[in-house]
């Protein structure tokens, strides 16, 4: 289980080790950049998979985001916001890139591969099964709706933080979440009788 990028990592509340690494990377410190990539890669790939619903596209988006992180490290200004918010916006920009959006999302049939509960207790297996069904249903949603749902339900971000990540207004995020939830409810036909 990855550690989500929550406001607890925010540079405004505590010294942010990621921001410090980024500052060193901006000065050309390759080891600091490599360390930063190691810290961010797994949660970034997890979020990109949730948003894009396709592993190859997610990997491509994360690679592009890390390329931009190296090239634009000098542009990060801690006075203007946290590293977590800046990085999330960069990652979402790459994930929701128009060129990538032209490619088809993973079909619903592929959703069976998504989370593998493995030999876990029954409740974890149930949760994994539920997550797989939601992932499959979410594959048909517009990417921005998926991104809003993933950031809200996955990373537990506030409306303002999601708005910043998606470069939109809080009102628009509310709309994305409402429409996404409504569409998911429609698409989860096989669960409909289970859902209250």
């Amino acid at each position, binding site marked *: *289980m*990855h550690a989500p990028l929550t406001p607890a990592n925010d540079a405004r509340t505590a010294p942010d080790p990621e921001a410090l690494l980024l500052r060193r*990377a901006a000065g050309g410190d*390759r080891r600091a*950049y*490599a360390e930063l*990539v*190691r810290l961010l*890669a*797994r949660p970034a*790939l*997890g979020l990109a*998979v*949730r948003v894009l619903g396709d*592993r190859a596209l*997610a*990997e491509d988006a*994360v*690679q592009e985001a*890390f*390329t931009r992180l*190296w*090239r634009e490290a000098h542009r990060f200004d801690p006075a203007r916001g946290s590293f977590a918010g800046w990085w999330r916006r960069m990652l979402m920009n790459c994930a929701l890139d128009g060129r990538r959006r032209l490619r088809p999302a993973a079909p619903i049939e592929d959703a069976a*591969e*998504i*989370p*593998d509960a493995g030999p876990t207790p029954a409740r974890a297996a*149930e*949760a*994994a099964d*539920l*997550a797989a*069904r*939601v*992932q499959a249903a*979410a594959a048909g949603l517009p990417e921005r709706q998926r991104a809003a*749902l*993933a950031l*809200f*339900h*996955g*990373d*537990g971000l506030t409306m303002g933080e999601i708005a910043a990540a998606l470069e939109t207004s809080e009102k628009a995020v509310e709309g994305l979440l409402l429409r996404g*939830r409504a569409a*998911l*409810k429609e698409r*989860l036909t096989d*669960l409909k009788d*289970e*859902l*209250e």
Partner: protein
Amino acid sequence: MTRKPTLDDALAAWGTTDPLTAGDSGALDRILKHADAVAAPSPASRLRWWALGGAVAASAAIALVVAPSIGVSQRQDAAGEAGAQPVILADASGSESAAFALLYTPTTEEEYQL
């Protein structure tokens, strides 16, 4: 008997279950390698500097080769000016000019009649 899941339960399960599996370690490795490659000083940039240096050297060499010939031609021009040929003006006493004058210049008699 377990409680029936709500949409929020389903979304919470989706949001908190790590979507990555053991099979994704390859993707993570590729991401790390890609990042290393991005940060590494690229051979292409070194090649660019070499190419730039080569271009400057080639330009200098061409300039050296061409410069003496420019000097020679300038000297030739200077010599030309020293021994300049006299300017030959057009012959104003040509027969064609005379014929033209005869045709269009009125005689005193013609002038008188006018």
